């Protein structure tokens, strides 16, 4: 299959990547750019473990062709921290132990960012709804909800 070449801005860096036209955004990020924080779970848009923020919107990278993202900005979990300083959402997941195996965690964090960007002070019910596309088998979600609430609290205090 002939390759096509596209340009992206991933976590603030310009990238030119060549790939077969049927490559998904997920596989382009994982296999071509080695962003392994973008995880592959169900490959059907059901589990959310491949969540990234594309052009400001939360997407399942497994459902989008890489070519569709040509020219757009992509944020993966690797782009969240400021150097060694974790993003307040990441820090909240550390502090509240909002993870066990970690397979869903990176997607969960981007989903949380998507929620808190739009709604800085969500209720428990709004958090549940916002994370309904992120499957977690380990935690029973309680510590994840607490992490999101802790992140909202910190970010309200002006930390970004």
């Amino acid at each position, binding site marked *: 299959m002939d390759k096509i070449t596209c340009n992206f801005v991933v976590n603030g860096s310009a990238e030119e990547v060549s790939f*077969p036209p049927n490559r998904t955004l997920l596989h382009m990020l994982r296999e071509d750019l080695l*962003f*392994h*924080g*973008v*995880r*592959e*779970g*169900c*490959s*059907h848009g*059901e*589990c959310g*473990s491949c969540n990234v923020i594309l052009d400001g919107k939360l997407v399942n990278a497994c459902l989008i062709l890489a070519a569709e993202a040509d020219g757009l900005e992509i944020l*993966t*979990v*690797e782009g*969240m*921290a400021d150097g060694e300083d*974790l993003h307040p959402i*990441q*820090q909240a*997941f*550390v*502090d509240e*132990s909002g*993870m*066990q*195996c*970690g*397979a*869903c*965690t*990176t997607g969960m*964090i981007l989903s949380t960012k998507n929620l808190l960007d739009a709604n800085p002070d969500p209720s428990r019910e709004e*958090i*549940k*709804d916002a*994370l*309904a596309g*992120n*499957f*977690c*088998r*380990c*935690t*029973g*979600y*309680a*510590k*994840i*909800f607490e992490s999101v609430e802790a992140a909202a609290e910190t970010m309200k205090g002006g930390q970004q």
Partner: protein
Amino acid sequence: MSDQPAKIGDNWPNLIGKRLPRVDAVEKVNGDAKYAGDFNMAGQLWMKILRSPHAHAKIISIDASKALDMPGVKAVVTAEDFKGWSWGWGPQTRDETPLAEGKVRYFAEAVAAVAAEDEETAEEACALIDVVYEELPGIFDAEEAMQDGAPQVHDYVENNQSWDFHMDYGDVEKGFAEADLVREDRFETGRTLTGFLEPPAAVAQYDTAGITIYAAKQSPYFIYRQLASCFKLPLSKVRVIQPYVGGGFGGTKNDSTAGDFCAVMLAKKTKRPVKFVYNMEEVLTTCRRRHNMIVDCKMGMKKDGTITAVQTKVIADGGAYTAIGPLTMYLTGIMTTLPYKLDNYKHDAYRIFTNHPVSAAMRGHGVTHTRFAAEIQMEKMADELGIDPVEVRMKNAIEAPHETINGITVDTCGLKEGLEIVSSSTAWKDKDKNKKDGPVVRGVGISGTSHLGGARQRGHQSCAAIVRLCEDGTVNYLTGASDAGQGSDTVLVQLVAEELGLTMEDVTIQRVDTAVTPVDNGSYGSRVTILAGQAAQKAAQEVKRQLAEAAAKVWQVDAEKILFNDRTVFVDGDPDKSMPFRKLTQIACYSESGAVIMGKGYSEYGIEKMDFEKGYGNPGVNYSFTSQLSAVDVDLETGMVKAKDFLIAHDCGRPLHPVNVEAQTQGAASQGLGQALYENFKMHEGRTMNSTMVNYMMPLSTEHPDFELHDIITDDPHGPFGAKEASEGSIISTPPSIVSAIHDATGIWFTKLPVTPEKIVLALKEKKERENAQKKESE
């Protein structure tokens, strides 16, 4: 606490019992944590597996020539390459070959594998392999499979009986004769997915040094032994490296997969590394799943609620191969004598081969089925006798110390305390007040269950640790134990740091690399904290002993007077004699040329004899007790059930890492919720109809209730710092408490899991028709 070191300073223990961050937290939130599928080796090929389109068929021929001619394809393997090698539970049950040999026994069983330059080429090449099958009649129902004349899954196994297990203690007939009420009911548990989010994956290399494989395993030493056996290599030439593991929950990741063997064989053939990642459909159609079981339960009860006898018969759909099934059968029986007093107990369990994917272990292994049946039956009978659900449990609950009729010894038990917590809650006391009129009705139910910790597998218990001191006072801790997400790495580091008086940051864990770390059975049966925990403690104590000798020389005192706390070493009762831990390390390491300080330790818990065949003796080191209240809303019109509140009082002895204990209890209850209400593979002629995460329903964020958790501290003498298990108890307590809550809301006892909306609507309709008919009759 017994058998523990003396208290050192006011702040001891420094780390045990504290709400510390997990040692793997940062890597897991910033994307650094590497899982098996994240590893790549230079020059690697990709592998895909060709799977059977039939549930039961003879393989007449396999022609891979077209696939091999395809550009980019490097090699194909079939059963021939493995020369008849097979694996399984014991010598007489090694019935599974890496690739189907002569016959396929379940739909999507692996038949051949291709290695190619990329994954797509490998997949396309699979489609070019020409396999000629001769279809055979399949058998898809365990009870039918037991009948004479049923199709045989394995030619040498009559009536498809994979394994049977029997227990007979006391005199059940005498027990039933003494009872005022005897009931017989049939229960059924679902076929469920373990549900890990990281599919099996590995990258394997085979060269003159032997095998090197990065694989997603919760028991990496199982595949280590299996690969050595399959490839006829000494164990010293099999290197299994375990990356982060994206969930396990038993079964698949405790075992090898077809993919593992094929990747190594293809690496051997091509002399290049070979990588594979299963897709989620392969997981749902071919990975080990929980046994679907029919449990016929007979119980005798006196008017006052005393249980006089229990007799159970289990028929389990084992699928096509044995796997770890014999242990499952053992566990269905062994634990029924807990947590209620029982003098007369008989159990017969039959694991049956069918043309279904293989059934194996899953969290709450074996225990969850029979405990569900006994809990519901006990409550049904109490209901008939007009006894309150709490009262019947309190009446029968064991108290420590206790020895069951089959020789299980319990030294600590917080069941009654847990039941008191649950029943004194307002949710329980006000349950009738809160019921609501409908169509949505609130139901509240309870349960009281038990699980083993520190599991033993027919006595084989290897579990060791090495603690290696670095010259700067930091520590490498080498363990064979595996953290599949449950948080055991954190607890083990905590134990090492606690023993040495260090901080969490001072101790770095070396995860499994079989070339380096000591043998361990891995993560199953809630064994890691208890067994690997003790090994870690002992290894750290050995380092401490060597350091104390060095300090004793410096200060000219008895080594026993040297204490370690807060990164400081000091002489007991002489505060002037103290120095930083780092300084003592350097004195000790540099005292003689080449002094190297290492400590090793191994677990001694639970090595007394047991009788596996008769189900006598301890299956674990100690036993947890879980009391649970579940509140659910049942919509009487749609049958939809929504879990609202879970109140769980768990006796894990002592929570070493309270956050992990909470998280494990919540997570196990979440899986129990799935089992109770949603999860079941729908099978048709051997095919898994709900083979994606879109249509196999597992609970999501919106399905989860609020949790209220209580720790019951009992300080068990057989666990490190008093610990017992905390990772499986609530998967056992959740389904019966939910089914009891649904009964509270609907007046109907459901006996088949999962209790889906269809079942509820149909049962309500039948109930109404029955009531109407009775009304008519009385008119």
